[in-house]
């Protein structure tokens, strides 16, 4: 490469005020290429899907607690879903499938990767925008049609996909088995399109982090959020294409008569599971690594103390991402795979507990001898740690192959995955939203209502999901339309009623959050540039940052966690604060 071509290297029109030209409404709010606006667009989209996914969960919980009883107000559903408000089994299966699909692909993943990736990567590394702003815009505008396609599948003949979010073949490969033809195909098509969105985002994130860090922002001065998002982007980049390949094979099995997963024609149903989980386990870490980053950031900020073992935290993220590729078989212990292979996967799965443990201990180490301010983001981050401990520990039961025989595909798994994805990822998302809300909108969310939301969420979350461990140990299977069908589960019905009430309350508290989120945009207190007295670069510029972010390229002098450093008056010091004598005063 000739030296001259490197002119494009620092192709950065947004700097030096060039980007401050006026653009119209459509370019500002709809087809925006500004990473902050794209982050807000992802935020709006994924919060809507989060609410939708929650609504589906409510419907499921109603059926589980009161099987066969008409849902209050359920008359609005067409007869193909819930005649007279009584949920049909096929509709229940669609609810199970779409709840998982919405939450994983359209809520948690875009919230963590789409929102925080877009918002934080340029801001925290000191760049004016992403490497490819137009590709970034495309990434969002691919996710939208994918979402509409997924939604539309509810209203086509046969209803939405009902083979679970894992779409195990051959159940998913032939409409004859479920009565869902077009719905399943829309599901496959939608995820395929969404895959393009994710890959476009990942290409952007990886390029931006590698090439566009501000001077002085060395790899080991990066905030852990950036490390987590960077590693996550690599996982997205490598895992999503595997899913894409599998989706295409399933789609052609459904439509073109190929035989990949159809045993009646010589295909292999287990091939789907291998491909799906080879994608699916990295996907699990895509859904938790950014949460690790967010929580590390906020715990250090709340404790006013450097993150404990920064280097080990980075290594743990990388180790988890690496090990995540060789554990997929633990989803398939009961599939009839070779027992020796099962043993191998058990060992790798057990080992992956180690970096997770390192993270937890380092978070505790961060709090040790701190000076803890109980801000709302901190409360959520601390809750994350306590709930992730439960989710992590319950994973060890399933990793042990003999114990997994009993609890595989039961509510123990449901409890485990919700402790990781709701107690883990979603609490981290609440922490992240409340923490960066002022940076996004220039105003603070109402603290009182936020605290009420936190307390209610924490209590009812645990009341809803903790008892599920017990149901699983009693042998209650997942994805069961009517548990009272089984004698031994009918006895446990009071627990299902209890859980349902807890879920009702849990969701009621989320309404508070949504209202607070919207009202604070207009009524919130003015935030100022650095309301949390934090160190990373985004807090050195106004809230919300102008187009192009930084007036001049920031020069970074230190890591992101220099809280309570000796020699400074304040207990924080911005990463781009020059180390001059005057600054110390």
């Amino acid at each position, binding site marked *: 490469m000739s030296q001259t071509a490197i002119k494009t290297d620092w192709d950065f029109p947004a700097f030096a005020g060039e980007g401050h030209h006026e653009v119209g409404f459509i370019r500002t709010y709809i087809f925006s290429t500004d990473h902050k606006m794209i982050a807000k667009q992802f935020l709006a989209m994924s919060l809507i899907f989060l609410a939708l996914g929650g609504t589906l969960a409510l419907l499921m919980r109603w059926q589980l607690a009161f099987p066969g009883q008409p849902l209050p107000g359920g008359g609005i559903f067409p007869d193909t879903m819930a005649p007279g408000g009584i949920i049909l*089994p096929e509709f229940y299966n669609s609810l*199970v499938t779409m709840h998982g699909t919405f939450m994983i692909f359209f809520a948690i993943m875009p919230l963590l990767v789409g929102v925080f990736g877009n918002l934080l990567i340029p801001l925290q590394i000191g760049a004016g925008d992403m490497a490819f702003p137009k590709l970034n815009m495309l990434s969002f505008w691919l996710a939208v049609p994918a979402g509409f396609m997924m939604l539309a599948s509810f209203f086509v003949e046969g209803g939405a996909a*009902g083979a679970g979010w894992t779409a*195990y073949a*051959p*159940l998913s490969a032939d409409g004859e*088995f*479920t*009565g869902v033809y077009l719905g399943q195909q829309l599901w496959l098509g939608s995820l395929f399109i969404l895959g393009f969105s994710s890959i476009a985002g990942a290409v952007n994130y990886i390029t931006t982090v590698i090439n566009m860090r501000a001077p002085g922002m060395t790899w080991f001065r990066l905030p852990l959020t950036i490390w987590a998002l960077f590693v996550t982007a690599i996982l997205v980049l490598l895992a999503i294409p595997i899913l894409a390949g599998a989706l295409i094979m399933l789609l052609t099995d459904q439509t073109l008569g190929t035989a990949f997963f159809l*045993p009646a024609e010589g295909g292999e*149903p287990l091939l789907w599971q291998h491909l799906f989980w080879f994608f699916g386990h990295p996907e699990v870490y895509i859904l938790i690594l950014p949460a690790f980053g967010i929580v590390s950031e906020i715990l250090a900020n709340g404790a*006013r*103390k*450097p993150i404990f*073992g920064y280097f*080990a935290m980075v290594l743990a993220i990388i180790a988890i991402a690496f090990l995540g590729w060789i554990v997929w078989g633990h989803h398939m212990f*009961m599939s*009839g795979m070779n*027992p*020796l292979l099962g*043993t191998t996967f*058990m060992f790798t799965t*057990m*080992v992956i*507990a*180690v970096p997770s*443990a*390192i993270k937890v*201990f*380092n978070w*505790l*180490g961060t709090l*040790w001898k701190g*000076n*803890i*301010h109980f801000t709302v983001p901190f409360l959520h981050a*601390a809750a994350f740690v*306590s709930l992730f401990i439960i989710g992590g520990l*319950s994973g*060890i*039961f399933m*990793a*042990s192959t*003999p*114990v997994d*025989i*009993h609890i595989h595909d039961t509510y123990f798994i449901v409890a485990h995955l919700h402790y990781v994805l709701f107690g883990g990822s979603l609490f981290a998302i609440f922490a992240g939203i409340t923490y960066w809300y002022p940076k996004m909108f220039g105003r603070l969310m109402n603290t009182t209502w936020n605290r009420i939301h936190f307390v209610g969420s924490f209590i009812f979350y645990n009341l809803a999901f903790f*008892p599920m*461990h*017990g149901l699983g140990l*009693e*042998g209650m*299977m*997942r994805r069961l339309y*009517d548990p009272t069908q*089984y*004698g031994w589960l009918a006895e446990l019905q009071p*627990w299902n009623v209890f859980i349902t009430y807890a879920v009702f309350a849990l969701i009621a508290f989320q309404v508070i959050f949504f209202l607070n989120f919207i009202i604070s945009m207009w009524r919130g207190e003015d935030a100022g540039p650095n309301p949390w007295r934090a160190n990373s670069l985004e807090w050195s510029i106004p809230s919300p940052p102008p187009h192009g972010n930084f007036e001049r390229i920031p020069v970074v002098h230190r890591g992101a966690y220099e*809280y*309570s450093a000796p020699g400074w008056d304040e207990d924080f010091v911005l990463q781009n604060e020059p180390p001059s004598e005057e600054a110390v005063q």
Partner: protein
Amino acid sequence: MNWLLEPSVSTFGPDIDQLYYIILIITGIVFFVTEGLLIYFLVKYRAREGRKAEYIHGSTRAEVIWTAVPFVVVLVLALMSKPLWDQIKEPSLFPEGAYEIEVVARQFEWEARYAGANGEFDADDSFTLLNRVHVPVNQPVILHLEAEDVIHSFFVPDFRVKQDAVPGRRIPVWFEITETGEYELGCAELCGIGHYRMDGLVVVQSEEEFEAWKQERVAANGGQP
């Protein structure tokens, strides 16, 4: 709701339960220690006027300890799990002289096929049974699991037995039950709209009762498979 398991009635059930309790105790200790520390730190180090947090970046010694200890613990758990897993799932280690039954899963029922006196499943005196599986007590039994349409999963909680039935495959499952009685059987893998009502019964009988029952079935079938 509790953390104790219902008693199991298979020979390897208590071993699974024991392993479960070992993990429960270990994770329980970790749970109380970590959550306890978390709460303790939150209370002890809450912000107070005029105090600054200590400027600590970490401790290599602590890192090494809390990397090594979990590593050893999970490795030991894996090593403890392996022999039991092999005993239950490795076909080459299945007990000899087991009584063999074919179980075919389809939407949404279980069909048990019993071999005739010559050991063939399509003999004149073989017979089938819907949503019920009769097995003898105190004798190893091997079920050959098959599925006709989609994946199902044969799950008897009281036996600590679970195995997917995959179309196109014939997967053996063995168990030996130590108490007579009727035990509920369920499908653990989403298999379609009737997944929730794919229940059945496993009837465990004494050897004499089992033999008598078989004769009765053969007679009732009039020699037709």
